């Protein structure tokens, strides 16, 4: 082979390699785009809800309270009759069946919404106001275009009569889209239009905080001891191998462990963020120890020697110099570990967080859900409305993960550059 041929071959090899690299990146990007596109196209509509504009007349004959009543009386009062009257006025119905179909166009919480409007201004007896009542899930999906209306009637959840009402309301500009406050404020519900991730958000928040409080100090102290103080011998080698093994243990195993020890033996309350936090802490511990040790190892030995040489004790050299320098890596490792814990589903299902919880937990020992488990729960539901809710929850989860990873990268870059 001549010199030119060899040179050509070398260049060709490099070109080929570059091509492979670019192709792999493109393939990866395409998959990410498909995922993001799929989630966004399905989920973004969940942030809006369909509302129907109705006229509410607070008829003194249909309600027992008067203007200016104290709040608790209003809360206890029965708004059922007023609600039915209001909803029936939306469209003329000829018989009881039609009336029921008409009422089904509205959320089952219509009464609560009317009561809420009255609570904001308890001076409405005898007056008429315009109010936007949340539509039922079927109308919501129809309005968002997720509902096939050209199916035969017996295969549709919406009857022809209901479609007629919908078209009529639409023509009269009575149907609008509003920001879906229920999605963020409510707990889970059987009715998709009322279901929200409020409970799951709070549950995830408590779980992660407990996980952080337990895992971070233990992981950091363990790493510092192992990396800086422990003698290097067979025992510490064995511990190191096992920490690496633990990081690779499938998370469901931690769930089983928690089920046996925390729930069956210690009898902590099940389905609670407390148990979830402890379980996630167990799981996250090795995942924090590993980056933490790596960042301690990355501190140049010359810094330790410099400190020792001026007469610092081992403890002083570690805590005055090595640990502060390793902090960015430690923190970013911790945040990434927590982000993994935030997205963890399997162990939480085993400890009973998969339960249907309507109330938003007020303490970490209340039954609760969490974001990934909520995704799992809703993805199994039959109603169309839960499809967009599932994707929207994934969007929320992903945005938390992205924010956390961003903070991790930011911390690392900002504080590592500081002195260079």
């Amino acid at each position, binding site marked *: 082979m001549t010199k030119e041929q060899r040179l050509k071959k070398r260049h060709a090899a490099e070109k080929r390699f570059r091509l492979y690299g670019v192709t792999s990146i493109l393939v990866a990007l395409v998959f990410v785009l498909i995922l993001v596109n799929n989630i966004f196209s399905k989920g973004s509509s969940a942030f809006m809800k369909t509302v129907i504009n109705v006229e509410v007349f607070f008829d003194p004959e249909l309600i027992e309270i008067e203007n200016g009543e104290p709040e608790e009386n209003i809360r206890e009062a029965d708004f059922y009759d007023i609600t039915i009257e209001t909803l029936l006025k939306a469209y003329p119905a000829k018989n009881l069946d039609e009336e029921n179909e008409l009422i089904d166009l509205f959320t089952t919480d219509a009464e609560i919404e009317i009561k809420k409007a009255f609570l904001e201004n308890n001076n409405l007896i005898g007056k008429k106001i315009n109010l936007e009542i949340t539509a039922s899930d079927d109308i919501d999906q129809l309005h968002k275009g997720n509902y096939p209306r050209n199916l035969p009637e017996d295969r549709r959840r919406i009857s022809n009569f209901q479609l007629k009402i919908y078209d009529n309301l639409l023509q009269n500009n009575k149907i609008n889209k509003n920001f879906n406050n229920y999605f963020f404020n409510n707990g889970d519900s059987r009715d998709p239009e009322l279901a929200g991730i409020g409970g799951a958000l709070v549950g995830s928040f408590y779980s992660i905080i407990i996980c952080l409080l337990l895992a971070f100090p233990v992981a950091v102290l363990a790493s510092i001891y192992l990396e800086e103080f422990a003698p290097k011998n067979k025992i510490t080698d064995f511990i190191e191998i096992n920490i690496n093994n633990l990081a690779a243990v499938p998370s469901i195993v931690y769930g089983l462990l928690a089920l046996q020890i925390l729930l069956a033996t210690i009898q902590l309350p099940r389905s609670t963020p407390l148990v979830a936090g402890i379980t996630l802490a167990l799981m996250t511990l090795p995942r924090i120890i590993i980056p933490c040790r790596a960042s301690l190892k990355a501190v140049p030995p010359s810094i330790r*020697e410099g400190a020792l040489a001026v007469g610092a004790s081992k403890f002083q050299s570690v805590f005055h110099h090595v640990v502060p320098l390793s902090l960015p890596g430690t923190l970013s490792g911790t945040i990434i570990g927590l982000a993994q814990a935030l997205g963890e589903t399997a162990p939480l299902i085993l400890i009973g967080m998969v339960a249907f919880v309507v109330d938003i937990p007020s303490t970490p020992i209340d039954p609760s859900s969490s974001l990934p488990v909520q995704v799992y729960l809703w993805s199994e539901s039959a109603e169309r409305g839960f499809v967009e809710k599932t994707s929207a929850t994934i969007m929320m989860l992903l945005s938390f993960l992205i924010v956390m990873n961003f903070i991790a990268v930011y911390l690392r870059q900002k504080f590592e550059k500081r002195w260079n």
Partner: protein
Amino acid sequence: MSEVKIKSNNLNVFYGDKQALFDVNLDLNEKEVTALIGPSGCGKSTFIRCINRMNDVIDICKVTGNIEIDGVEINDENLDVVSLRERVGMVFQKPNPFPKSIYDNISYGPKIHGKGETKSELDEIVERSLKKAALWEEVKDRLDEPGTGLSGGQQQRLCIARAISVNPEVILMDEPCSALDPIATAKIEELIDELKKTYTIVIVTHSMAQAVRVSQKTGFFHLGKLIEVGKTEKIFKNPDNKMTQDYITGRFG
């Protein structure tokens, strides 16, 4: 002839199974510069690291034999290495300032030893140390800036100032100029000349010329053994040992 400050007696050092020093008997004089020369891996760095017990950091390292400073045995398990290192400072091959401000680099030692109680005491120590290390004029206006932002030569002088800051009796220098250019080297050598009035200095070097320039006494190591030791003049002009002769004339090493 000045008094003996440090005395080593049958010093042996092992790294695991490998023996790095063999029965080294070497006396270092007070307020004098002793240069240790020899090819790489001959044990000269290992030797000076015994004087401030830096080898303790290495798990597999074992030291036998005696080292005395002012007649006190330091190779003793009960000896507090912290107070030993307060008396025996060290400057390393590669400048290793802490990634902190220049001021904090110098004040760290005095602070942990309780030598500067107040801010003004610390200020004074910082100024004195930097002046002794011939760095004060260059950095006096930017003491808050990171020590790692200085040039290599300045960083090394900062490390010398850091070693001086705790007011040691001995300063160990492990090839302090190997990472520096000739001008920075010249400055450090000048500084060493000045420092020997106050401190006992041991310097490991690969440069014969540097050994001649800065030291009064020279020890030649080879394969873990101290081959020859004597007045620098004698070692470089008229060594007793053939191996020393070969090394200083550049025939091996």
